[in-house]
């Protein structure tokens, strides 16, 4: 990998910059409780913020990239909303759904087989087909105890 050096001019000292991938154009998305910021490191000014997006009105609990579409990202939060954004059209989200009154703690997209979006609530696991990030196809009541599930994961596909 080619390595370059430049000055970011932050706090009066230089910061080494290296190319981190095939491109030296790096964008960072910073999701705040009720705002999302798209960062472009190619901007040389004080701020590298390229876009500011607004969706969640409470804290975000999980974010994940779409497994099929590299430009789509989904997030969920304490406000129970599930939002999906396409970086090619950052002006507005491509999907937003509110399906439960309880906190949503996790949203997952398996890296294999059928594209499903798992949305993990306090007491239930919501399965969504993500053909168009459509309505939930199934909801499983997996936690009936008093415990709170804060995260979820998936097993590797056997093949």
């Amino acid at each position, binding site marked *: *990998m080619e390595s370059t050096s430049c000055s*970011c001019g*932050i*706090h009066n*000292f230089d*910061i*080494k*910059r*290296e190319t*981190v*991938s*095939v*491109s030296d*154009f*790096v*964008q*960072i*998305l*910073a*999701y*705040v*409780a*009720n*705002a999302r*910021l798209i*960062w472009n*490191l190619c901007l040389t000014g004080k*701020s*590298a913020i390229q876009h500011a997006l607004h969706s969640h009105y409470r*804290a*975000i*609990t*999980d*974010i*994940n*990239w779409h*497994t099929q579409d*590299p*430009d789509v*990202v989904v*997030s969920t939060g304490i406000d129970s909303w599930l939002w999906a954004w396409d*970086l090619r059209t950052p002006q507005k989200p491509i999907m937003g759904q509110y399906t439960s009154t309880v906190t949503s703690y996790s949203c997952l997209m398996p*890296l294999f087989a059928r594209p499903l979006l798992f949305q993990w609530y306090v007491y239930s696991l919501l399965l969504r087909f993500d053909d168009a990030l459509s309505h939930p196809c199934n909801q499983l009541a997996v936690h009936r105890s008093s415990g709170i599930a804060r995260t979820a994961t998936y097993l590797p596909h056997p093949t």
Partner: protein
Amino acid sequence: MSISPSYRDLVLAACVHPLIYPLCLDFPPMQRRNGLFIIDLNAPSDVPRFLPQGGTWNVADVQWNPHPARAEYIISTSSEKL
């Protein structure tokens, strides 16, 4: 923490909570900065690339785009307003 699709770089999210920030003033500036550190695993002892984040925030999560075609994207969350 998240890894790039090429498995070459790590991104670490770091923050200092505003309540304890005054207690950290004796630390070198690099050790009390809010933002993302990108570590090159081919040269882990080098100074990491730092991406500053202004304001008071607490990093909750960071995810590198797993698609090689969009390896330039990283997403991070924050639990406080800027």
